[in-house]
């Protein structure tokens, strides 16, 4: 990899406050600053092989203030939320929640390199916002249509199997309080953007 | 400073803390050594054991202007004097029974156990209590007493019976007045 000298507060990527920013945007207490770079997270991760940085290295990049490189990383998007790293971390870093934070920062700034995962999340969110419930058929169909068109024929038997076994609703279910939910989410978004 | 003047400034509660020599005072020392920050509103008094704590001290602190009183000792079972801190617990529970009648919220008098190793915990509890008391507002007992026209200040016994003959006996003081006849041989 390219070694880049980082001067805090100066240069394109160097930003000494990035760690604080990530930590503050995380639900609960992230303990990100407590990382001792032991690699227990990277060792535990089931999808580490597919990540461009292990979580540990991503945290080192955050500490170095390399915002662009961090937000462009696929690491958060490869996280499967298995929480192995969280319960094993000797420093109690909330690794998964930090990954969520990085995803939302990257999604917000469209800083990611591969849109597959962000798009999946967005489609999911749109469904939930519209109906109040998730809609598996719509989600999967739309997503595969967009990102794995070639896989679709192979997936067909499964889809048909699920449908014939009554495991795939053809229409989304809408909650009664969808207006109420919309109002809540609107206010929440407003608060988040305002802060 | 009168109550009215205080109202114009942000209210900073004063909490008197009674600590024991072996656990909680040492926890405070430890918090200091470890530079753990907490609210400056608490002022600690060291007793040898929290079992030394007489409810009088707590009522006195409140009557003299404290907004809250923190009591802290070794955890039950870890008392330096075997189990004298159980007396602290009992007296505290007893005192809690009369505070409501006097209109004093339970958050103003709190019992917190802290071992000598629990500097962080004690600091945390102090912060929590100070915030709770801040939320309740000033207790301001001396100002209230003054407003009622009671005499306070030098020369007046604000509370309690005078010491009478228990003080330094004066020459020629009449003993008969204070000693019921026929009791002491």
């Amino acid at each position, binding site marked *: 990899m390219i070694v880049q000298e980082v001067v805090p507060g100066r240069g394109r990527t160097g930003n000494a406050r990035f760690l604080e920013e990530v930590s503050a945007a995380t639900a609960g207490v992230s303990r990100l600053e407590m990382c001792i770079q032991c690699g227990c997270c990277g060792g535990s991760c089931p999808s580490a092989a597919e990540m461009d940085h292990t979580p540990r290295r991503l945290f080192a990049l955050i500490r170095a203030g390399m915002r662009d490189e961090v937000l462009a990383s696929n690491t958060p998007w490869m996280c499967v939320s298995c929480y192995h790293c969280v319960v094993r971390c000797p420093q109690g870093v909330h690794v998964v929640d930090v990954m969520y934070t990085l995803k939302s920062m990257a999604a917000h700034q469209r800083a990611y390199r591969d849109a597959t995962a962000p798009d999946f999340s967005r489609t999911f969110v749109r469904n939930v916002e519209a109906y109040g419930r998730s809609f598996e058929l719509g989600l999967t169909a739309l997503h595969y249509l967009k990102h794995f068109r070639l896989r679709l024929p192979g997936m067909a038997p499964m889809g048909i199997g699920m449908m014939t076994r009554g495991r795939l609703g053809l229409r989304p279910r809408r909650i009664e309080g969808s207006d109420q939910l919309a109002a809540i989410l609107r206010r929440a978004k407003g608060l988040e953007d305002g802060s | 400073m009168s*109550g009215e003047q205080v109202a114009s400034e942000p209210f900073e509660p004063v909490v008197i803390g009674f600590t024991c020599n072996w656990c909680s005072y040492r926890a405070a020392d430890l918090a200091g050594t470890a530079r753990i920050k907490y609210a400056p509103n608490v002022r600690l008094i060291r007793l040898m054991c929290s079992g030394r704590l*007489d*409810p*009088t001290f*707590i*009522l*006195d602190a*409140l*009557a003299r202007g404290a907004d809250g009183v923190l009591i802290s000792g070794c955890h*039950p079972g870890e008392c330096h004097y075997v*189990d004298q801190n*159980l*007396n602290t*617990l*009992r*007296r505290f*529970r*007893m*005192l809690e*029974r*009369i505070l409501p*009648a*006097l*209109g*004093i919220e339970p958050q103003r008098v709190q019992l917190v156990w802290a071992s000598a190793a629990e500097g962080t915990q004690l600091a945390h509890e102090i912060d929590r209590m100070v915030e709770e008391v801040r939320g309740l507002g000033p*207790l301001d*007992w001396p100002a*209230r*007493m003054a*407003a*009622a*026209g*009671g*005499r306070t200040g030098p*020369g*007046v*016994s*604000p*509370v*309690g*019976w*005078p*010491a*009478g*003959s*228990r*003080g330094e006996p*004066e*020459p*020629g*003081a*009449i003993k*008969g*007045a*204070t*000693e*019921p*006849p026929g*009791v002491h041989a």
Partner: protein
Amino acid sequence: MSGEARPTFAMYGAGSCGGCDIAVLNVHEKILEIGAAFEVVLWPVVMDAKYRDLEARPDSSIDLTLFSGGIRTDENADLARLLRRKTKLLVAFGSCAGEGCIPGLANLTPPAEILDTVYETVSTENPDHLRPGTQPNPGGPGQLAGFAAVLRTLDQVVDVDYFVPGCPPESPRIAEVLDLALAALRGGEDLPPRGAVLGAGESTVCDECARTRNVKQIAGFRRIQEIDHLDPTLCLLEQGIPCNGAATASGCGALCPTAGAQCVGCYGPVAGAIDGGARLMSAFASVAQARTAEEMDRILDGLVDPIGQFYRFGLAKSLLRASRSAWAAAGGEWGRR
């Protein structure tokens, strides 16, 4: 003191029940000595008197005043100040003047609430809605005395020379005090230090109580009427009866415990005590057989009226003196009274 003239004597009851006056009258033949030894200048229970006569007297012209009753009204306070001015030896006589006594328990309640209860509830006929501070005869003279936010003890209003505790003080003690005063006024004896408590012992009721005592342990509290069989010789506290004797000044001869009733504490705490209620609480709690908060709570549940138990006589003289809601009134309308 002027030559051969008899010493002058006054007794006045402010917020009192009159029991103290009765107690003085109840000193048997001693009352004759009093009558003979003193010149009574004011004693409303015994003889008619006018305030204006009192006001007309020279200052410090009364040698001894026994002042009973707490200070609750304007009138109480005015008389306290007046008598202070006129008196050489002002004695706070009885529990009310000294520590507030039962009327002092009203300090737990805001004054408006007290007056509502007294003047407006269904058992009261008060068509003109008279209250303290109002004029009973519109257009006419006089008005009802104003009612203070809290009851104060005599020494919270004026300097007091001596205290004689008890509700009421016991006759033998009264006699001793009067003898002492007389002797001193005649120049035969030195007086105890100013501010001293007279007519009480320096120890507590237990000192005078004949009941047997063991290492104290309390497993629970019970009311005396709930007990079928009371051991007539064993310490009441050890039987779970919340007897206040251990913290109450001696002097009464342990009358109540001897008669099988718990000491309620009318002689107040021993000299030097700061808050008698706190002392009692500390002592009771220390011997409660509880190792956890829950066990302690279970024991305390047996104490039906904790504040009444510990502050029945001494609330107005205690560290906090009154409840916060009562004090709150002192800052406003009631504060000006």
